């Protein structure tokens, strides 16, 4: 039951993009086509889960016992950057088809604040455990995927719409994101 609540909270109520504003760069940047946004979501799911797993273990067994908690930001970002590199190299070797799909998105993920954000937020979970932290990461990346894919589908429709000159490009996308966020606000109080 507890896990169901974490899942609903992460995907709908506190959606990582639309109500916590993490990962806005890829949300606005790679959302012009549904297919690319699915690729990006897959890459985020992969990296976010691995990153949270690694940083959680690192925090529990290295940083806390040695009193190095203040190095959290530096170590986490380095671990994530190294991890992204590693995933890229391994994928290229082991599974070329998967690499073809996710490859171009991997370098972008190092500076995706959603990955670092979830890794840090996972440390603050109530009565946290490793399994809970990893589950939290998976739920959040599904939330990211949901927001990104819905937004991309709307943007594909927008291509055909007649938009006032001043609103073209960035402003209309931000407005659409605002309305989408308003829709997600309706889930408040669900858990």
């Amino acid at each position, binding site marked *: 039951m507890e896990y169901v609540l974490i899942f609903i909270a992460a995907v709908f109520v506190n959606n990582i993009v639309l109500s916590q504003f993490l990962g806005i760069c890829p949300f606005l940047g790679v959302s012009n086509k549904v297919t690319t946004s699915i690729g990006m979501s897959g890459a985020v799911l992969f990296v976010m889960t691995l990153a949270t797993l690694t940083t959680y273990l690192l925090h529990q067994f290295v940083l806390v016992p040695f009193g190095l908690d203040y190095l959290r*930001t*530096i170590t986490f970002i*380095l671990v994530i950057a190294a991890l992204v590199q590693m995933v890229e190299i391994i994928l290229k070797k082991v599974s070329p088809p998967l690499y073809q799909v996710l490859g171009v998105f991997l370098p972008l993920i*190092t*500076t995706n604040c959603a990955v670092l954000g979830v890794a840090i937020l996972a440390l603050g979970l109530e009565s946290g455990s490793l399994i809970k932290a990893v589950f939290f990461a998976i739920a959040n990346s599904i939330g990211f995927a949901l927001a990104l894919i819905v937004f991309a589908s709307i943007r594909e429709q927008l291509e055909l719409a007649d938009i006032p000159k001043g609103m073209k490009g960035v402003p209309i996308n931000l407005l659409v994101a605002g309305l989408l966020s308003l829709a997600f606000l309706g889930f408040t109080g669900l858990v």
Partner: protein
Amino acid sequence: MAEKMNQTQNFLKGIIKENPVFVMLLGMCPTLGVTSSAFNGLGMGLATLFVLLMSNIVISLVKSQIPDKVRIPAFIIVIASFVTIVEMVLEAFIPFLYEQLGIFIPLIVVNCLILGRAEAFASKNDLLSSIIDALGMGFGFVIALTVLGAVREILGNASLFEWRFVSENANTFILFVLPPGAFIALAYLAVLFNKIAIKTS
């Protein structure tokens, strides 16, 4: 004199022509996430300005020592060190702001604005130009965040820098201090900014 003109332009480009928020769309996460009030926007802007300035200075000084292949991780370490300093200073001296900004303080590390300036400017230019570039971009970011924070606070809370100009229980557009308001306010500010930028250039 020509040199001086150049530096003035270098400074001004960050504020108007290449404004990080309204034109380049860099650093959107903190821009949208913390601007529920003008004070928070200003605080976040100044914290980012500090990290940007210090990392530009350091990277500009050591640029010839960094091997080209590992430059991005090297930049990230420099940036992360200054972010850690900001995190500790805020926690010790301005705990109120530290709590308000929360997760967005460590996330200054992944602000694309800072890494972007390190990569695109500080690693190629001399110290003085890098400092001026950081100040221009940094103040462009501070101004954008403060204006967005002020607009949202005025509309959503009928106050500015915590100073209320209507009675406590007056109706306001609460929407604007909630997450959707961030997107909507920024969308209209971007339209306005484009209009002003086109007129001045």
